[in-house]
């Protein structure tokens, strides 16, 4: 092989490998959004002072506060992912019923497993009785100029998110619902 061909091949391998990583990220996400099970979670207001940073919305959820007594088995390590089992109550709202460090097997249609981490990577149980959990669905980018409007709606508790969840418990926001109507559904690409 000539040096030039060897060089071109090496560079192509580098570019292809890096492209593959990026494409893998996109594919993973689109697969989750396309095929994941859908649940609707009402948004609760978070600290209004930094609810919006530009067009970047912070979203709070009732399921973000998990009682530590729900922990089943050993406590998860710091910053390690753990699994929160949600159950649909009679009024249709999802609420946490169990937490475990390993992926639990749940087959009931009234239950769904979400992968979460503690809010700042701290210990699951810091003695306060409540773990603050993030599921990767706590921020959302909205079109320019819509921030303030959504802020008001969030304060009035009129927003919900449509969330896709895959079999590994990974969650992604599919869209925002205002008064139950789907308003911001993002295209996959």
């Amino acid at each position, binding site marked *: 092989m000539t040096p030039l061909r060897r060089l071109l091949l090496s*560079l192509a391998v*580098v*570019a292809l490998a*890096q492209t593959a990583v*990026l494409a893998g*990220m996109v594919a993973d996400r689109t697969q989750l959004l396309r095929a994941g099970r859908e649940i609707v979670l009402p948004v609760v207001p978070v600290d209004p002072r930094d609810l919006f940073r530009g067009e970047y919305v912070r979203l709070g959820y009732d399921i973000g506060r998990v009682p530590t007594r729900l922990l089943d088995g050993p406590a998860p390590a710091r910053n390690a992912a753990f699994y929160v089992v949600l159950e649909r109550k009679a009024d249709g709202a999802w609420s946490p019923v169990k937490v475990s460090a390993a992926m639990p097997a749940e087959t009931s249609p009234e239950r769904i497993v979400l992968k979460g981490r503690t809010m700042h990577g701290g210990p699951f149980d810091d003695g306060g009785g409540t773990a603050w959990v993030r599921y990767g*669905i706590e921020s959302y980018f909205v079109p320019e100029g819509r921030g303030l409007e959504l802020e008001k709606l969030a304060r009035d508790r009129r927003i919900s998110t449509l969330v896709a969840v895959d079999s590994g418990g990974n969650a992604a926001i599919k869209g925002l619902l205002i008064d139950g109507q789907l308003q911001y559904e993002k295209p996959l*690409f």
Partner: protein
Amino acid sequence: MSWYRHKVERDLARWQAAGWVGDAGAAAIRAELAARRSPFGIASVLAILGAVLFGFAAISFVASNWWAMSKLARLALLLATLWGCYGATALLLHRRLEAFAQAAVLAGVAVYGASIMLIAQMYHMEGNPPDAVLYWALGALLAAVLVPSNPALAATFVLLAVWTVYERGLGQHAHWAFLPAWAAAAAAAGWRGWRPGLHLAALALLVWLVPLGYLVLDRHAHWLVVLAGGAAAVAAATAGPAIDRRLPASAALFCYGLVTAFAGVYILQFIDPIVRYGRLGEVWSWRLMLLAALTLAMLLASMAWALRTSNRAALWLAYAAFALEVLGLYLKTFGSLLNTSLFFLVAAVIVSLLAWAAYRLHRRAAPAEAAA
């Protein structure tokens, strides 16, 4: 004029005057020195700086909103830029513009990292953020090995260090996963025979190793760091010639071992008590005295070894460590002047005795040399 050339010129004048080097020889040596070109031309420095700035431009693009484009258009833009950088690398290498080609590789690595962040932002990925840094580092390592590219390898070590600091900051664990990734990058530096890369490898390992004591066993296991650094320094001192036959690195290894061991004892003496008890602890304790004595002995032995092996870097590091140690002891005993003065008196006596012993040894050795 480079530092090396300056030094040789000075010695050459002396050797010529002594008649050891003839006029023809001296002229030939000077011509050879003048013909040497510095590897750091202004063009290559500017090209690398340009690549770094380009990287910052790409990264700050993350913060800006780019709503005008569809997701697909954004992905296409990112990938086109990425491939453009590596395409430019091929073109520049083909035209033998090595420095510019290296800058293009570095720009490609920067665009790759920016793309990871942008895609994570576009799709609201919020998994474990340090993982993104690891993916970036591995992409940089691949470019470093295949192109091959020293700047990309340097970027790999920086990214690996950022990765371990980030991961530990969140997880508060030892982060053993750092070691295989580091070993792969260090092996690449060794394979390339790139000395600055090996120094970067050592520095990246130090970033991981020095705080390790906080993260393993009882979370105050800094003695492990002292042992690791001490072992490296002792290995460099005892197996020096054997190491240097493969790679002339024993002098540097000694320096890094010294720095690691000193960082460990320094944490044990002056930082860990604050972490543990929220204050410096009692002014004097047997533990501190023992550790201080050990540190001073270690530093004096290092200085002696550095002088014997003409290891200038180790000598200056040991001097600096000595100054830090004395400053630490002074601050710790501040407010208790009697204790402070007692300490300095004891230290002064010990150092003076050692100086006397060294002088006697030297005197005994000198006549033997004269006789031989």
